[in-house]
Protein backbone atom coordinates (compact mmCIF):
# COMPACT_ATOMS: atom_id res chain seq x y z
CA UNK A 1 0.00 0.00 0.00
CA UNK A 2 1.41 3.48 -0.82
CA UNK A 3 2.17 6.01 1.85
CA UNK A 4 -0.59 7.94 3.59
CA UNK A 5 0.42 11.09 1.69
CA UNK A 6 0.18 9.36 -1.66
CA UNK A 7 -3.24 7.90 -0.80
CA UNK A 8 -4.45 11.38 0.20
CA UNK A 9 -3.17 12.83 -3.09
CA UNK A 10 -4.81 10.08 -5.12
CA UNK A 11 -8.13 10.58 -3.32
CA UNK A 12 -7.87 14.36 -3.82
CA UNK A 13 -7.15 13.98 -7.55
CA UNK A 14 -10.06 11.59 -7.88
CA UNK A 15 -12.46 13.99 -6.19
CA UNK A 16 -11.22 17.03 -8.12
CA UNK A 17 -11.77 15.18 -11.39
CA UNK A 18 -15.34 14.34 -10.38
CA UNK A 19 -16.93 17.68 -9.65
CA UNK A 20 -15.44 18.54 -6.26
CA UNK A 21 -14.64 22.28 -6.18
CA UNK A 22 -11.84 22.27 -3.62
CA UNK A 23 -9.90 19.80 -1.45
CA UNK A 24 -8.78 21.13 1.93
CA UNK A 25 -5.68 19.40 3.25
CA UNK A 26 -2.23 20.29 4.55
CA UNK A 27 0.85 21.52 2.74
CA UNK A 28 4.37 22.27 3.92
CA UNK A 29 5.41 25.93 3.70
CA UNK A 30 8.86 27.17 2.70
CA UNK A 31 9.86 27.33 6.37
CA UNK A 32 8.93 23.67 6.76
CA UNK A 33 5.83 24.52 8.76
CA UNK A 34 2.68 22.49 7.98
CA UNK A 35 -0.39 24.57 7.18
CA UNK A 36 -3.89 24.22 5.68
CA UNK A 37 -3.91 24.02 1.87
CA UNK A 38 -6.75 24.58 -0.58
CA UNK A 39 -6.36 22.55 -3.78
CA UNK A 40 -8.55 23.59 -6.69
CA UNK A 41 -6.81 21.79 -9.58
CA UNK A 42 -5.84 18.12 -9.85
CA UNK A 43 -2.36 19.22 -10.93
CA UNK A 44 -1.76 20.73 -7.48
CA UNK A 45 -2.50 17.64 -5.41
CA UNK A 46 1.21 16.93 -4.92
CA UNK A 47 1.31 19.88 -2.51
CA UNK A 48 -0.66 17.76 -0.03
CA UNK A 49 1.39 16.31 2.84
CA UNK A 50 0.61 14.50 6.06
CA UNK A 51 2.30 14.33 9.46
CA UNK A 52 1.71 14.60 13.22
CA UNK A 53 1.98 18.42 13.12
CA UNK A 54 -1.29 18.58 11.14
CA UNK A 55 -3.12 19.66 14.29
CA UNK A 56 -5.87 22.07 13.16
CA UNK A 57 -9.43 20.90 12.40
CA UNK A 58 -9.94 21.41 8.66
CA UNK A 59 -13.69 20.84 8.98
CA UNK A 60 -13.72 24.42 10.33
CA UNK A 61 -13.10 25.67 6.77
CA UNK A 62 -16.26 24.00 5.49
CA UNK A 63 -18.16 27.01 6.83
CA UNK A 64 -16.58 29.08 4.03
CA UNK A 65 -18.16 26.85 1.38
CA UNK A 66 -21.71 26.78 2.74
CA UNK A 67 -22.86 29.55 0.40
CA UNK A 68 -23.19 28.97 -3.38
CA UNK A 69 -20.28 30.39 -5.38
CA UNK A 70 -22.66 32.05 -7.83
CA UNK A 71 -26.24 33.09 -7.19
CA UNK A 72 -28.74 30.40 -8.12
CA UNK A 73 -26.22 27.55 -7.96
CA UNK A 74 -26.22 24.90 -5.18
CA UNK A 75 -23.35 25.22 -2.65
CA UNK A 76 -20.12 23.66 -4.00
CA UNK A 77 -19.01 20.14 -3.11
CA UNK A 78 -15.75 20.16 -1.15
CA UNK A 79 -13.45 17.46 0.15
CA UNK A 80 -11.61 17.72 3.44
CA UNK A 81 -8.84 15.60 4.97
CA UNK A 82 -9.91 14.54 8.46
CA UNK A 83 -8.47 12.63 11.39
CA UNK A 84 -10.87 10.69 13.67
CA UNK A 85 -11.27 13.72 15.98
CA UNK A 86 -11.93 16.08 13.05
CA UNK A 87 -14.47 13.69 11.52
CA UNK A 88 -16.67 14.00 14.62
CA UNK A 89 -17.12 17.69 13.69
CA UNK A 90 -18.72 16.65 10.40
CA UNK A 91 -21.41 14.73 12.29
CA UNK A 92 -21.91 17.69 14.63
CA UNK A 93 -22.37 20.14 11.74
CA UNK A 94 -24.62 17.74 9.83
CA UNK A 95 -26.83 17.40 12.91
CA UNK A 96 -26.90 21.17 13.38
CA UNK A 97 -27.93 21.55 9.71
CA UNK A 98 -24.88 23.63 8.84
CA UNK A 99 -23.75 21.29 6.05
CA UNK A 100 -25.30 18.55 3.97
CA UNK A 101 -23.33 15.31 4.31
CA UNK A 102 -23.31 14.77 0.52
CA UNK A 103 -21.67 18.16 -0.04
CA UNK A 104 -18.64 17.26 2.08
CA UNK A 105 -16.39 14.43 0.95
CA UNK A 106 -14.32 13.25 3.93
CA UNK A 107 -10.88 11.82 3.22
CA UNK A 108 -10.56 9.99 6.54
CA UNK A 109 -7.04 9.24 7.73
CA UNK A 110 -6.85 6.35 10.20
CA UNK A 111 -4.90 7.54 13.20
CA UNK A 112 -2.04 5.57 14.72
CA UNK A 113 -2.50 7.37 18.03
CA UNK A 114 0.15 9.38 19.83
CA UNK A 115 3.47 7.93 18.70
CA UNK A 116 6.47 8.83 20.85
CA UNK A 117 8.49 11.76 19.53
CA UNK A 118 5.35 13.48 18.20
CA UNK A 119 4.55 16.84 19.68
CA UNK A 120 2.58 15.45 22.66
CA UNK A 121 -0.98 16.54 22.14
CA UNK A 122 -3.56 16.26 24.84
CA UNK A 123 -6.21 15.08 22.41
CA UNK A 124 -4.10 12.19 21.11
CA UNK A 125 -3.06 10.87 24.51
CA UNK A 126 -6.68 10.24 25.42
CA UNK A 127 -8.20 9.61 21.99
CA UNK A 128 -10.34 6.48 21.90
CA UNK A 129 -10.78 6.29 18.12
CA UNK A 130 -8.41 5.00 15.46
CA UNK A 131 -10.75 5.10 12.42
CA UNK A 132 -12.77 8.26 11.59
CA UNK A 133 -16.41 7.87 12.63
CA UNK A 134 -17.47 9.02 9.14
CA UNK A 135 -15.54 9.09 5.89
CA UNK A 136 -15.99 8.73 2.14
CA UNK A 137 -12.46 7.51 1.46
CA UNK A 138 -10.37 5.79 4.12
CA UNK A 139 -6.62 6.27 4.14
CA UNK A 140 -4.57 3.86 6.27
CA UNK A 141 -0.86 3.47 6.90
CA UNK A 142 0.52 0.00 6.31
CA UNK A 143 2.12 -1.89 9.22
CA UNK A 144 0.69 -2.28 12.69
CA UNK A 145 -2.07 0.01 13.81
CA UNK A 146 0.00 1.81 16.47
CA UNK A 147 -0.98 2.34 20.11
CA UNK A 148 -4.36 0.82 21.10
CA UNK A 149 -7.14 3.33 21.69
CA UNK A 150 -6.75 4.88 25.15
CA UNK A 151 -9.59 5.12 27.64
CA UNK A 152 -9.92 8.76 28.69
CA UNK A 153 -10.45 8.79 32.48
CA UNK A 154 -9.78 12.52 32.74
CA UNK A 155 -7.03 12.09 35.31
CA UNK A 156 -5.77 15.68 34.92
CA UNK A 157 -9.31 17.03 35.35
CA UNK A 158 -9.95 14.93 38.45
CA UNK A 159 -6.66 16.17 39.86
CA UNK A 160 -7.74 19.80 39.39
CA UNK A 161 -11.11 19.05 40.95
CA UNK A 162 -9.29 18.20 44.18
CA UNK A 163 -7.82 21.70 44.40
CA UNK A 164 -9.61 24.34 46.48
CA UNK A 165 -11.88 26.73 44.55
CA UNK A 166 -9.41 29.54 45.24
CA UNK A 167 -6.54 27.52 43.76
CA UNK A 168 -8.57 26.84 40.63
CA UNK A 169 -9.59 30.48 40.33
CA UNK A 170 -5.98 31.63 40.67
CA UNK A 171 -4.90 29.00 38.12
CA UNK A 172 -7.40 30.16 35.51
CA UNK A 173 -6.86 33.85 36.19
CA UNK A 174 -3.12 33.27 35.70
CA UNK A 175 -3.75 31.40 32.44
CA UNK A 176 -6.33 33.87 31.10
CA UNK A 177 -4.05 36.79 32.01
CA UNK A 178 -1.78 35.76 29.13
CA UNK A 179 -4.66 35.73 26.67
CA UNK A 180 -4.53 38.58 24.14
CA UNK A 181 -8.19 38.12 23.14
CA UNK A 182 -7.24 37.45 19.53
CA UNK A 183 -10.10 34.91 19.11
CA UNK A 184 -7.81 32.42 17.27
CA UNK A 185 -9.36 29.66 19.46
CA UNK A 186 -12.87 30.62 18.39
CA UNK A 187 -11.96 31.11 14.74
CA UNK A 188 -10.24 27.70 14.59
CA UNK A 189 -13.18 25.86 16.19
CA UNK A 190 -15.64 24.08 13.84
CA UNK A 191 -18.33 24.36 16.51
CA UNK A 192 -18.01 28.17 16.74
CA UNK A 193 -19.83 29.65 13.74
CA UNK A 194 -22.16 32.32 15.15
CA UNK A 195 -22.54 35.30 12.80
CA UNK A 196 -21.92 37.66 15.71
CA UNK A 197 -20.18 36.27 18.80
CA UNK A 198 -21.56 37.38 22.15
CA UNK A 199 -18.05 38.57 23.06
CA UNK A 200 -18.14 41.12 20.24
CA UNK A 201 -21.82 41.92 20.33
CA UNK A 202 -22.63 45.59 20.39
CA UNK A 203 -26.36 45.39 21.08
CA UNK A 204 -26.77 44.07 23.82
CA UNK A 205 -23.24 44.87 24.89
CA UNK A 206 -22.55 41.87 27.15
CA UNK A 207 -18.88 42.49 27.78
CA UNK A 208 -16.58 45.43 27.20
CA UNK A 209 -14.01 45.68 24.40
CA UNK A 210 -11.19 45.75 26.98
CA UNK A 211 -8.39 43.19 26.60
CA UNK A 212 -8.42 42.68 30.36
CA UNK A 213 -8.84 39.85 32.83
CA UNK A 214 -12.62 40.13 33.55
CA UNK A 215 -13.43 40.17 29.82
CA UNK A 216 -11.09 37.26 29.01
CA UNK A 217 -12.48 35.14 31.88
CA UNK A 218 -16.01 35.92 30.62
CA UNK A 219 -15.11 35.01 27.02
CA UNK A 220 -13.41 31.67 27.73
CA UNK A 221 -15.92 30.39 30.31
CA UNK A 222 -18.85 31.47 28.14
CA UNK A 223 -17.34 29.92 24.99
CA UNK A 224 -16.56 26.67 26.80
CA UNK A 225 -20.18 26.47 27.93
CA UNK A 226 -21.55 27.21 24.46
CA UNK A 227 -19.56 24.13 23.32
CA UNK A 228 -20.79 21.91 26.19
CA UNK A 229 -21.82 18.64 24.60
CA UNK A 230 -20.81 20.03 21.18
CA UNK A 231 -17.01 20.04 21.47
CA UNK A 232 -15.47 17.19 19.43
CA UNK A 233 -12.18 17.34 21.41
CA UNK A 234 -10.00 18.01 18.36
CA UNK A 235 -7.90 20.56 20.36
CA UNK A 236 -7.72 22.94 17.38
CA UNK A 237 -8.30 25.77 19.90
CA UNK A 238 -5.15 24.87 21.81
CA UNK A 239 -3.19 24.38 18.58
CA UNK A 240 -4.25 27.83 17.32
CA UNK A 241 -3.61 29.73 20.56
CA UNK A 242 -0.46 31.89 20.14
CA UNK A 243 -0.11 32.12 23.92
CA UNK A 244 -0.40 28.34 24.60
CA UNK A 245 -3.32 28.54 27.04
CA UNK A 246 -4.58 25.03 28.07
CA UNK A 247 -8.08 25.64 26.69
CA UNK A 248 -8.80 21.94 26.15
CA UNK A 249 -9.00 21.48 29.94
CA UNK A 250 -12.21 23.57 30.00
CA UNK A 251 -13.73 21.53 27.19
CA UNK A 252 -12.63 18.21 28.68
CA UNK A 253 -14.13 19.12 32.07
CA UNK A 254 -17.48 19.69 30.34
CA UNK A 255 -17.04 16.55 28.22
CA UNK A 256 -16.48 14.58 31.44
CA UNK A 257 -19.67 16.00 33.00
CA UNK A 258 -21.70 15.52 29.81
CA UNK A 259 -20.58 11.89 29.69
CA UNK A 260 -21.43 11.42 33.38
CA UNK A 261 -24.86 13.11 33.15
CA UNK A 262 -26.01 12.03 29.68
CA UNK A 263 -23.58 9.28 28.55
CA UNK A 264 -23.09 11.27 25.36
CA UNK A 265 -20.02 11.42 23.10
CA UNK A 266 -20.12 14.32 20.67
CA UNK A 267 -20.00 13.59 16.97
CA UNK A 268 -20.37 9.82 17.06
CA UNK A 269 -23.84 9.76 15.53
CA UNK A 270 -25.28 12.61 13.41
CA UNK A 271 -28.78 11.55 14.45
CA UNK A 272 -28.21 11.92 18.21
CA UNK A 273 -28.64 15.55 19.36
CA UNK A 274 -26.08 17.20 21.62
CA UNK A 275 -27.63 16.99 25.14
CA UNK A 276 -28.10 20.72 25.70
CA UNK A 277 -30.04 21.09 22.48
CA UNK A 278 -32.70 18.61 23.60
CA UNK A 279 -34.42 17.46 26.80
CA UNK A 280 -36.06 14.55 28.52
CA UNK A 281 -39.24 15.32 30.49
CA UNK A 282 -38.85 12.35 32.80
CA UNK A 283 -35.34 13.35 33.78
CA UNK A 284 -34.60 14.95 37.19
CA UNK A 285 -31.03 16.16 37.42
CA UNK A 286 -29.15 17.24 40.57
CA UNK A 287 -29.33 21.07 40.51
Amino acid at each position, binding site marked *: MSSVEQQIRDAARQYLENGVYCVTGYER*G*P*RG*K*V*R*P*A*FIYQASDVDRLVWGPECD*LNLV*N*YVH*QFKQPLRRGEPPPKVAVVVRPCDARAINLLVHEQQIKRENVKAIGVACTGATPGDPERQACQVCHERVPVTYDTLVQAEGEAGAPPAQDNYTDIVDMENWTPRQRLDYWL*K*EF*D*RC*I*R*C*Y*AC*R*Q*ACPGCYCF*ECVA*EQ*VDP*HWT*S*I*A*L*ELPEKYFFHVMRAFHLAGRCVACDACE*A*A*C*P*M*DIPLSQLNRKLAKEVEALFGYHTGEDPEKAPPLTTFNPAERLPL
Partner: protein
Amino acid sequence: MKVLTQAQLKAWLDDLAHNLTLVAPVNVQGKLEYGKVSGSGDVAWDYQRTDMSPKTWLFPATESVLTVRQAQDGTQILEPPEPPPTVLFGVRPCDARGNLAIDALFLNKAPSDSQYARHREATTLIGVACPQMWASCFCTVVGGAPNSTEGLDILLTELQEDKQTLFAAQVLTEKGQKLAANMPGTEREVALPSPKLTAGLPTLRPSAEWQARFNEVYWQRVGDRCLACRACTFVCPACRCFDVRDEVASRQPGVQVFERLRAWDACTSEPYRRIAGGHNPRPTPQSRLRNRFYCKFMYYPQDFGSLGCVGCGRCIDACPVNIDILEVIASVEKMAG
Protein backbone atom coordinates in the same frame (compact mmCIF):
# COMPACT_ATOMS: atom_id res chain seq x y z
CA MET B 1 31.01 55.46 24.72
CA LYS B 2 30.49 54.01 28.19
CA VAL B 3 31.28 50.32 28.78
CA LEU B 4 29.59 48.50 31.68
CA THR B 5 30.03 45.05 33.13
CA GLN B 6 26.94 42.89 33.52
CA ALA B 7 27.01 43.51 37.27
CA GLN B 8 27.18 47.27 36.77
CA LEU B 9 24.27 47.15 34.32
CA LYS B 10 22.19 45.13 36.77
CA ALA B 11 23.00 47.52 39.62
CA TRP B 12 22.02 50.47 37.48
CA LEU B 13 18.71 48.80 36.56
CA ASP B 14 18.01 48.09 40.23
CA ASP B 15 18.66 51.76 40.93
CA LEU B 16 16.35 52.86 38.10
CA ALA B 17 13.60 50.53 39.33
CA HIS B 18 13.45 52.46 42.62
CA ASN B 19 12.24 55.80 41.37
CA LEU B 20 10.91 54.97 37.89
CA THR B 21 8.63 52.34 36.39
CA LEU B 22 11.12 49.85 34.95
CA VAL B 23 9.74 47.60 32.22
CA ALA B 24 11.81 44.79 30.77
CA PRO B 25 11.40 41.43 29.01
CA VAL B 26 9.85 38.94 31.43
CA ASN B 27 8.97 35.27 31.06
CA VAL B 28 5.28 34.71 31.75
CA GLN B 29 4.83 30.92 31.75
CA GLY B 30 7.02 30.44 28.73
CA LYS B 31 5.81 33.51 26.84
CA LEU B 32 8.14 36.50 26.66
CA GLU B 33 6.58 39.92 26.99
CA TYR B 34 7.46 43.31 28.46
CA GLY B 35 6.41 43.59 32.08
CA LYS B 36 7.05 45.82 35.08
CA VAL B 37 10.04 44.60 37.07
CA SER B 38 11.18 45.53 40.54
CA GLY B 39 14.83 44.99 39.64
CA SER B 40 17.28 43.28 37.29
CA GLY B 41 16.51 39.94 38.95
CA ASP B 42 13.10 39.66 37.27
CA VAL B 43 14.47 40.34 33.77
CA ALA B 44 14.49 37.38 31.35
CA TRP B 45 18.06 38.03 30.18
CA ASP B 46 18.50 35.27 27.60
CA TYR B 47 15.69 36.37 25.24
CA GLN B 48 15.93 36.62 21.47
CA ARG B 49 12.77 38.49 20.50
CA THR B 50 9.76 38.63 22.81
CA ASP B 51 6.39 37.15 21.83
CA MET B 52 4.53 40.38 22.65
CA SER B 53 6.06 43.71 21.55
CA PRO B 54 6.79 46.68 23.87
CA LYS B 55 3.94 48.48 22.05
CA THR B 56 1.78 47.38 25.01
CA TRP B 57 3.45 50.13 27.09
CA LEU B 58 3.17 52.98 24.59
CA PHE B 59 -0.12 52.08 22.93
CA PRO B 60 -1.74 49.90 25.65
CA ALA B 61 -4.18 47.14 24.65
CA THR B 62 -6.87 48.91 26.67
CA GLU B 63 -6.80 52.55 27.66
CA SER B 64 -9.23 55.13 28.90
CA VAL B 65 -9.41 58.01 26.43
CA LEU B 66 -11.59 60.07 28.74
CA THR B 67 -13.98 59.67 31.65
CA VAL B 68 -17.42 61.23 31.86
CA ARG B 69 -19.00 61.88 35.24
CA GLN B 70 -22.70 62.68 35.13
CA ALA B 71 -24.53 63.84 38.23
CA GLN B 72 -27.24 66.34 39.16
CA ASP B 73 -24.58 69.03 39.43
CA GLY B 74 -23.82 68.56 35.73
CA THR B 75 -21.57 66.60 33.44
CA GLN B 76 -17.78 66.69 33.61
CA ILE B 77 -15.39 65.28 31.03
CA LEU B 78 -12.15 64.27 32.71
CA GLU B 79 -8.77 63.55 31.17
CA PRO B 80 -7.10 60.19 31.80
CA PRO B 81 -4.22 60.16 34.28
CA GLU B 82 -0.72 61.16 33.19
CA PRO B 83 1.39 58.02 32.60
CA PRO B 84 4.24 57.66 35.13
CA PRO B 85 7.85 58.15 33.95
CA THR B 86 8.85 54.76 32.57
CA VAL B 87 12.06 53.12 31.39
CA LEU B 88 11.60 50.45 28.73
CA PHE B 89 14.67 48.22 28.92
CA GLY B 90 15.71 45.53 26.46
CA VAL B 91 13.91 46.99 23.46
CA ARG B 92 15.07 45.36 20.22
CA PRO B 93 15.92 47.76 17.36
CA CYS B 94 12.98 46.49 15.26
CA ASP B 95 10.50 47.30 18.04
CA ALA B 96 11.94 50.80 18.37
CA ARG B 97 11.33 51.29 14.64
CA GLY B 98 7.79 49.99 15.26
CA ASN B 99 7.24 52.96 17.56
CA LEU B 100 8.51 55.29 14.83
CA ALA B 101 5.93 53.81 12.45
CA ILE B 102 3.13 54.51 14.95
CA ASP B 103 4.59 57.99 15.59
CA ALA B 104 4.23 58.73 11.85
CA LEU B 105 0.44 58.47 12.19
CA PHE B 106 -0.29 59.24 15.85
CA LEU B 107 2.12 62.19 16.29
CA ASN B 108 3.37 63.52 12.98
CA LYS B 109 -0.09 63.70 11.34
CA ALA B 110 -2.38 66.33 12.92
CA PRO B 111 -4.19 66.11 15.26
CA SER B 112 -1.59 64.37 17.45
CA ASP B 113 -2.95 61.60 19.68
CA SER B 114 -2.64 63.03 23.16
CA GLN B 115 -2.56 59.82 25.20
CA TYR B 116 0.07 58.20 22.96
CA ALA B 117 2.08 61.43 23.02
CA ARG B 118 2.07 61.43 26.83
CA HIS B 119 3.23 57.82 26.93
CA ARG B 120 5.97 58.58 24.41
CA GLU B 121 7.18 61.57 26.40
CA ALA B 122 7.12 59.73 29.72
CA THR B 123 9.04 56.72 28.35
CA THR B 124 12.76 56.31 27.76
CA LEU B 125 13.84 53.42 25.56
CA ILE B 126 17.00 51.45 26.33
CA GLY B 127 17.68 49.15 23.40
CA VAL B 128 19.78 46.02 23.34
CA ALA B 129 21.25 45.31 19.91
CA CYS B 130 20.65 41.88 18.41
CA PRO B 131 23.80 39.77 18.02
CA GLN B 132 22.28 38.11 14.92
CA MET B 133 19.06 37.77 12.94
CA TRP B 134 16.94 34.86 14.14
CA ALA B 135 14.70 32.39 12.30
CA SER B 136 11.72 34.64 11.48
CA CYS B 137 13.61 37.98 11.53
CA PHE B 138 13.83 40.07 8.34
CA CYS B 139 14.51 43.61 9.58
CA THR B 140 17.09 44.21 6.83
CA VAL B 141 14.39 43.68 4.18
CA VAL B 142 12.36 46.63 5.48
CA GLY B 143 15.17 49.10 6.06
CA GLY B 144 16.17 48.07 9.58
CA ALA B 145 19.22 46.36 11.06
CA PRO B 146 19.93 44.21 14.13
CA ASN B 147 22.05 47.06 15.51
CA SER B 148 20.05 50.06 14.25
CA THR B 149 19.82 52.97 16.67
CA GLU B 150 16.64 54.49 15.19
CA GLY B 151 13.98 55.41 17.75
CA LEU B 152 16.12 54.49 20.76
CA ASP B 153 17.41 56.78 23.53
CA ILE B 154 20.28 54.45 24.54
CA LEU B 155 21.56 51.38 22.66
CA LEU B 156 23.49 48.70 24.55
CA THR B 157 25.59 46.26 22.55
CA GLU B 158 26.79 43.10 24.24
CA LEU B 159 30.41 42.16 23.59
CA GLN B 160 32.95 39.72 24.97
CA GLU B 161 36.35 40.94 26.20
CA ASP B 162 38.70 38.20 27.47
CA LYS B 163 35.77 35.99 28.47
CA GLN B 164 33.90 38.74 30.28
CA THR B 165 30.49 39.97 29.09
CA LEU B 166 30.43 43.75 28.69
CA PHE B 167 27.80 46.19 27.42
CA ALA B 168 28.81 49.19 25.29
CA ALA B 169 26.26 52.01 25.77
CA GLN B 170 25.64 54.49 22.96
CA VAL B 171 23.68 57.44 24.34
CA LEU B 172 21.67 58.71 21.39
CA THR B 173 19.22 61.34 22.53
CA GLU B 174 18.87 64.10 25.04
CA LYS B 175 16.42 61.90 26.96
CA GLY B 176 19.03 59.15 26.95
CA GLN B 177 21.57 61.67 28.23
CA LYS B 178 19.36 62.52 31.19
CA LEU B 179 18.80 58.84 32.06
CA ALA B 180 22.47 57.89 31.62
CA ALA B 181 23.57 60.67 33.99
CA ASN B 182 24.48 58.25 36.76
CA MET B 183 25.10 55.20 34.60
CA PRO B 184 28.13 53.28 35.89
CA GLY B 185 30.90 52.02 33.61
CA THR B 186 34.13 53.37 32.13
CA GLU B 187 34.23 55.85 29.26
CA ARG B 188 36.34 54.36 26.45
CA GLU B 189 36.14 53.61 22.75
CA VAL B 190 35.49 49.96 21.93
CA ALA B 191 34.86 48.17 18.62
CA LEU B 192 31.25 47.05 18.40
CA PRO B 193 30.74 43.53 17.04
CA SER B 194 28.76 43.47 13.81
CA PRO B 195 25.66 41.24 13.93
CA LYS B 196 25.36 38.13 11.74
CA LEU B 197 22.84 38.86 8.98
CA THR B 198 20.61 36.32 7.23
CA ALA B 199 21.44 36.14 3.53
CA GLY B 200 19.14 35.44 0.59
CA LEU B 201 16.12 37.32 1.88
CA PRO B 202 13.71 38.69 -0.75
CA THR B 203 13.73 42.41 -1.60
CA LEU B 204 10.69 44.55 -0.86
CA ARG B 205 9.14 46.08 -3.98
CA PRO B 206 8.22 49.79 -3.78
CA SER B 207 4.56 50.65 -3.00
CA ALA B 208 3.74 51.60 -6.62
CA GLU B 209 4.36 48.01 -7.70
CA TRP B 210 2.11 46.74 -4.94
CA GLN B 211 -0.71 48.86 -6.37
CA ALA B 212 -0.37 47.10 -9.72
CA ARG B 213 -0.74 43.68 -8.00
CA PHE B 214 -3.93 44.53 -6.09
CA ASN B 215 -6.28 42.34 -8.11
CA GLU B 216 -3.99 39.32 -8.54
CA VAL B 217 -5.66 35.98 -7.69
CA TYR B 218 -2.68 35.46 -5.33
CA TRP B 219 -4.41 37.49 -2.63
CA GLN B 220 -7.42 35.20 -2.88
CA ARG B 221 -5.23 32.12 -2.42
CA VAL B 222 -3.01 33.34 0.42
CA GLY B 223 -6.11 34.35 2.37
CA ASP B 224 -7.94 31.03 1.90
CA ARG B 225 -6.51 29.62 5.12
CA CYS B 226 -6.74 32.85 7.15
CA LEU B 227 -8.85 32.23 10.27
CA ALA B 228 -9.67 35.99 10.51
CA CYS B 229 -8.43 36.08 14.10
CA ARG B 230 -6.56 39.06 15.56
CA ALA B 231 -3.26 37.39 16.53
CA CYS B 232 -1.03 38.90 13.82
CA THR B 233 -2.14 42.49 14.39
CA PHE B 234 -2.01 42.25 18.20
CA VAL B 235 1.58 40.99 18.28
CA CYS B 236 2.70 43.49 15.62
CA PRO B 237 4.78 46.45 16.92
CA ALA B 238 3.55 48.69 14.07
CA CYS B 239 -0.19 47.90 14.01
CA ARG B 240 -2.18 50.63 15.72
CA CYS B 241 -5.87 50.22 14.78
CA PHE B 242 -8.25 50.59 17.72
CA ASP B 243 -11.93 50.41 18.61
CA VAL B 244 -13.63 52.97 20.85
CA ARG B 245 -16.62 52.32 23.06
CA ASP B 246 -18.13 53.75 26.23
CA GLU B 247 -18.15 51.39 29.18
CA VAL B 248 -19.95 51.94 32.44
CA ALA B 249 -17.34 52.52 35.13
CA SER B 250 -19.77 52.86 38.04
CA ARG B 251 -23.44 53.55 38.51
CA GLN B 252 -24.48 54.91 41.90
CA PRO B 253 -27.79 56.58 42.71
CA GLY B 254 -27.46 60.08 41.27
CA VAL B 255 -23.92 59.69 39.89
CA GLN B 256 -22.92 57.79 36.75
CA VAL B 257 -19.34 57.43 35.55
CA PHE B 258 -18.56 56.25 32.02
CA GLU B 259 -15.19 55.54 30.50
CA ARG B 260 -14.53 56.00 26.82
CA LEU B 261 -12.27 52.98 26.33
CA ARG B 262 -10.02 52.46 23.39
CA ALA B 263 -8.81 48.91 22.78
CA TRP B 264 -6.80 47.22 20.06
CA ASP B 265 -8.71 46.10 17.00
CA ALA B 266 -7.70 44.21 13.90
CA CYS B 267 -8.57 44.82 10.25
CA THR B 268 -8.43 41.05 9.76
CA SER B 269 -11.47 40.49 12.00
CA GLU B 270 -14.93 40.54 10.46
CA PRO B 271 -16.70 43.10 12.72
CA TYR B 272 -13.94 45.69 12.08
CA ARG B 273 -15.68 47.02 8.94
CA ARG B 274 -19.22 45.82 9.60
CA ILE B 275 -21.55 48.86 9.71
CA ALA B 276 -24.83 49.20 11.61
CA GLY B 277 -27.33 47.08 9.72
CA GLY B 278 -24.83 44.29 8.97
CA HIS B 279 -23.35 45.35 5.61
CA ASN B 280 -19.59 44.69 5.38
CA PRO B 281 -17.58 46.16 2.47
CA ARG B 282 -14.80 43.62 3.27
CA PRO B 283 -16.82 40.45 3.92
CA THR B 284 -14.18 37.77 3.17
CA PRO B 285 -11.03 36.89 5.16
CA GLN B 286 -9.08 37.18 1.91
CA SER B 287 -10.06 40.82 1.29
CA ARG B 288 -9.24 41.71 4.90
CA LEU B 289 -5.87 39.96 4.90
CA ARG B 290 -4.95 41.74 1.66
CA ASN B 291 -5.79 45.06 3.31
CA ARG B 292 -3.38 44.23 6.15
CA PHE B 293 -0.43 43.66 3.77
CA TYR B 294 -1.35 46.66 1.60
CA CYS B 295 -1.62 48.89 4.66
CA LYS B 296 1.91 47.88 5.65
CA PHE B 297 3.65 48.08 2.28
CA MET B 298 1.60 50.62 0.30
CA TYR B 299 -0.98 52.69 2.16
CA TYR B 300 1.20 53.52 5.20
CA PRO B 301 4.33 54.53 3.20
CA GLN B 302 2.15 56.55 0.81
CA ASP B 303 0.10 58.32 3.52
CA PHE B 304 2.62 58.64 6.38
CA GLY B 305 6.05 58.16 4.80
CA SER B 306 7.01 55.10 6.86
CA LEU B 307 6.66 51.39 6.18
CA GLY B 308 4.10 49.65 8.38
CA CYS B 309 6.37 46.67 8.98
CA VAL B 310 9.68 46.43 10.87
CA GLY B 311 10.57 42.81 10.07
CA CYS B 312 10.32 41.43 13.61
CA GLY B 313 8.65 38.19 12.41
CA ARG B 314 6.17 38.02 15.31
CA CYS B 315 3.19 37.59 12.97
CA ILE B 316 5.01 34.70 11.29
CA ASP B 317 5.36 32.90 14.64
CA ALA B 318 1.90 33.84 16.00
CA CYS B 319 -0.17 32.90 12.94
CA PRO B 320 -1.97 29.57 13.62
CA VAL B 321 -2.03 28.81 9.87
CA ASN B 322 1.48 30.03 8.96
CA ILE B 323 0.57 33.05 6.84
CA ASP B 324 4.11 34.31 6.34
CA ILE B 325 4.57 38.02 5.56
CA LEU B 326 8.09 37.35 4.21
CA GLU B 327 6.60 34.79 1.80
CA VAL B 328 4.13 37.52 0.71
CA ILE B 329 7.00 39.97 0.08
CA ALA B 330 8.80 37.29 -1.96
CA SER B 331 5.63 36.53 -3.94
CA VAL B 332 5.07 40.21 -4.82
CA GLU B 333 8.73 40.39 -5.86
CA LYS B 334 8.22 37.37 -8.13
CA MET B 335 4.96 38.82 -9.52
CA ALA B 336 6.73 42.10 -10.23
CA GLY B 337 9.21 40.10 -12.37
